[in-house]
């Protein structure tokens, strides 16, 4: 039944080819169902392969299935062959299993997307590449899959490429991974140059005969490759940005499968790692410290993120750090155990977050969630199970696997081991804290979707102040205008009374007919005087009213300014109230309140329920109590070169477990006090520097965009001028030489004949001279 292994990568490949040819014609949802069926069939084949392998005995469980010889070069040969052993079978089981669930989920999630069939085409291609990576029996075939998953990751991150941010996130992932791939390639070359073989069985088998620098070099270079794919410091930068892709992609590629391939690769060459531990312990210790350092570093960043997917992204980086730590201390079973458990609960959390985002009209800001457990009961219930699993609450899956890793770290010996354990423990506490924060902010508390943001409240206040100021300015302008009118009226009145007196004096000096007209003039002047007196009174009243209004407006402005400067942030856990500025809130706030969150359709919730079930019982795979319960360890044993022995006593194990539980409990309690009971200001932990990822991303980007560009331009110049120049120089020399030599080819037969004759004579002379001497 082991031959079913051929079907495992073949079915996704067939699904991919069919979708390439007929995807558009199949359309929605047929394309999605086809892709899901391909992966489902692949999963069934993987199960049959598993049973086939199980029917063999212990050491026979390492089978190489060769398809054909790929690269035959002299003594060196690379086959396209599958290494079917407990490790690769464990991997293909969970890759295809979780892949099937996520394909099913995507049918609903990608509903209505214009590139529906293209999405599934990429997903199938990704699964095929991942299976080649896992099943390949040599570094080159694994590298083929390694690049295949990298390319698919690039396609899928920038799936919605019309948005500039998504397109550049894809490029960032692609370019950052090239750095890691360099390590992988050089490791392959080194293995080829020194061992003459690149298949895993030979490498692991001959590890003890390799020289120390070689074996250390291969392991560290492969670790550089793992740093890229498994997002370890300093190459983790691409993973948080990779969340720009659709959520099922984040769940499948950037949480469950592809990012674990670095850990898988290192476990695959565990024979080499064992030799390095024995002879150059500093190298594996470096791996362990990079792992645990990344775990802590990413956990501190996750604490301050507000985007629901960013929290999960940093959490993934942190959990991958745990796995690398396990590999570094030689606890390979724990690494694989945690990898599988993490695939369960992190895929669950990502799909749950996708369901939330889907129901919240694509809003990813957790500050606008709250109280969703009433509106999305299935999503909330399963998400809470995922949270308990990752936070290390017994008996959920994550508790068992994380404990194994911490035990492995403690047991790796000396103060160094204790230090590794302590950092891991602090990370566990932070993990419990930030995951609880996420759950409390999303599913509990008040429904905050229609609350205005702090920035929106600020906006409302400044609009309010601007309005009061405009009123005050226009009122004082009106006051000035009416005062001017009043002054004019007084002047007019004075003029009128002057005119009246002049008229009277004129009347006194005239007589006869003129007397009559002088009388009329006096009467007119008198009327003018009366009306100007009335105008004066009128303007005086309106001026007084306007100046009173101006005073009121300026007082109102003063009040508004005082209110603005006196306004304090909202009480913890209360909505940010715009108060008297409420009518100036942007329209977006009212528009948001129109939206009603809803639960997702069944093919989105069904995978959640299955994954939640696995997250509850997953720990059964490797319970620590008796030897008989170490199913995973016994299963993996034939694939591991050396058994990892735990020296710690039972009492130590119990104490370590209780300390870990206590750390998790502290994390959850602090988060509950802060985000449920609002007894502490969240700003105490959500520091800007943490939200900014310690500024590392920014510094790297600034370097790459600034002085780095000059460096890369210089390298590009070197390549174009020196390297290409050498190649082109050879070609030019040959061509120029040819154009000189071609003149000898004159086309005259007789000159050729002359050449032959002279040549023969010269040869004859030479022979004679030689024989004479």
């Amino acid at each position, binding site marked *: 039944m082991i031959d079913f292994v051929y079907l495992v990568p073949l079915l996704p490949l067939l699904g991919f080819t069919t979708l390439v040819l007929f995807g558009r014609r199949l359309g929605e949802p047929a394309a999605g169902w086809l892709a899901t069926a391909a992966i489902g069939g692949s999963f069934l084949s993987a199960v049959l392969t598993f049973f086939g392998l199980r029917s063999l005995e212990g050491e026979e469980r390492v089978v190489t299935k060769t398809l054909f010889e790929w690269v035959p070069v002299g003594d060196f040969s690379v086959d396209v062959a599958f290494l079917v052993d407990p490790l690769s079978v464990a991997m293909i089981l969970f890759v295809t299993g979780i892949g099937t669930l996520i394909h099913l989920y995507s049918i609903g999630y990608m509903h209505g997307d214009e590139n529906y069939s293209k999405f599934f085409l990429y997903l199938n291609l990704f699964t095929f590449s991942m299976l080649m990576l896992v099943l390949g029996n040599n570094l080159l075939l694994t590298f083929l899959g390694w690049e295949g998953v990298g390319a698919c990751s690039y396609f899928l991150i920038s799936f919605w490429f019309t948005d500039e941010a998504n397109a550049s996130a894809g490029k960032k992932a692609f370019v950052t991974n090239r750095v890691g791939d360099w390590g992988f390639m050089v490791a392959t070359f080194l293995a080829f140059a020194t061992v003459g073989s690149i298949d895993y069985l030979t490498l692991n088998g001959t590890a003890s005969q390799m020289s120390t620098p070689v074996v250390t070099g291969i392991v560290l270079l492969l670790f550089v490759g793992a740093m890229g794919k498994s997002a370890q410091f300093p190459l983790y930068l691409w993973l948080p940005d990779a969340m720009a892709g659709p959520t099922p992609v984040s769940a499948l590629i950037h949480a469950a499968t592809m990012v674990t391939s670095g850990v898988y690769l290192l476990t695959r060459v565990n024979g080499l790692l064992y030799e390095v531990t024995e002879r150059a312990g500093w190298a594996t210790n470096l791996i362990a410290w990079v792992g645990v350092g990344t775990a802590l570093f990413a956990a501190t960043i996750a604490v301050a993120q507000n985007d629901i997917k960013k929290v999960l992204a940093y959490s993934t980086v942190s959990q991958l750090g745990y796995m690398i730590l396990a590999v570094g201390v030689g606890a390979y079973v724990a690494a694989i155990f945690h990898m599988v458990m993490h695939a369960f609960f992190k895929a669950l959390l990502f799909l749950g977050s996708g369901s939330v985002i889907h129901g919240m009209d694509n809003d990813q800001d957790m500050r606008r969630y709250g109280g969703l457990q009433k509106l999305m009961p299935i999503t909330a219930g399963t998400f809470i199970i995922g949270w308990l699993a990752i936070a290390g609450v017994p008996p959920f899956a994550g508790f068992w696997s994380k404990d194994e890793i911490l035990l492995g770290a403690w047991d790796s010996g000396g103060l160094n081991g204790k230090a590794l354990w302590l950092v891991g423990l602090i990370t566990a506490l932070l993990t419990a804290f930030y995951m609880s924060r996420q759950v409390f902010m999303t599913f509990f508390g008040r429904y905050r979707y229609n609350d205005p943001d702090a920035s929106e409240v600020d906006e409302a206040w400044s609009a309010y102040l601007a309005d009061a100021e405009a009123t005050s300015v226009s009122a004082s302008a009106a006051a000035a205008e009416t005062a001017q009118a009043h002054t004019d009226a007084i002047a007019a009145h004075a003029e009128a009374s002057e005119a009246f007196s002049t008229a009277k004096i004129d009347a006194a000096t005239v007589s006869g007919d003129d007397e009559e007209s002088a009388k009329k003039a006096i009467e007119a002047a008198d009327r003018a005087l009366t009306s100007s007196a009335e105008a004066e009174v009128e303007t005086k009243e309106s001026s007084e009213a306007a100046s009173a209004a101006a005073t009121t407006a300026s007082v109102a402005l003063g009040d508004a300014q005082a209110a603005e400067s006196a306004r304090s942030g909202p009480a913890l856990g209360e909505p940010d109230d715009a108060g008297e500025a409420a009518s100036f809130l942007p329209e977006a706030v009212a528009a948001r309140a129109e939206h009603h969150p809803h639960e997702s359709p069944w093919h989105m919730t069904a995978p959640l329920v299955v994954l939640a079930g696995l997250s509850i019982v997953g720990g059964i795979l490797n319970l620590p109590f008796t030897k008989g319960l170490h199913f995973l360890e016994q299963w993996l044993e034939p694939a591991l070169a050396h058994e990892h022995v735990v020296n710690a006593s039972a009492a130590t194990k119990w104490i370590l477990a209780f300390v870990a539980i206590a750390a998790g409990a502290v994390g959850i309690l602090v988060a509950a006090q802060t985000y449920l009971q609002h007894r502490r200001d969240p700003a105490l932990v959500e520091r800007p520097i943490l939200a900014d990822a310690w500024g590392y991303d920014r510094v790297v980007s600034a370097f790459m965009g600034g002085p780095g560009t000059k460096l890369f331009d210089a390298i590009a110049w070197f390549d174009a001028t020196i390297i290409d120049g050498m190649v082109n120089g050879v070609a030019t020399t040959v061509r120029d030489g040819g154009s000189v030599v071609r*003149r*000898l*080819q*004159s*086309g*005259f037969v*007789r000159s050729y004949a002359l050449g032959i004759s002279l040549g023969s004579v010269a040869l004859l002379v030479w022979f004679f001279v030689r024989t004479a001497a």
Partner: protein
Amino acid sequence: MGELTHNYYLVLGAVVFSIGAVGLLVRRNPLVMFMCVELMLNAVNLTFVGLAWGLNDIGGQVAVFFVMVVAAAEVVVGLAIVVAIMRRRDGATSDDLSALRG
């Protein structure tokens, strides 16, 4: 006159060969050049035969047969080329046929 030795044949062969070689170099008519080549080949044949007789070794005579067969084949190809050229242009001098110049 002394005794007839194979040296006479060798000298005669050398003279005929030289006439052929010089003729090949100085004449331009392909037909004449052909005859010169034949002269050279037959000069060599003569030396072969002469030496075979002088040294009493049948090997030289065997070589002559090979040379004659090859020469016959060469004449067939060569004359065919000359005829083909004559069909396309009137008259032929070898210096006109320099289309294969580099």
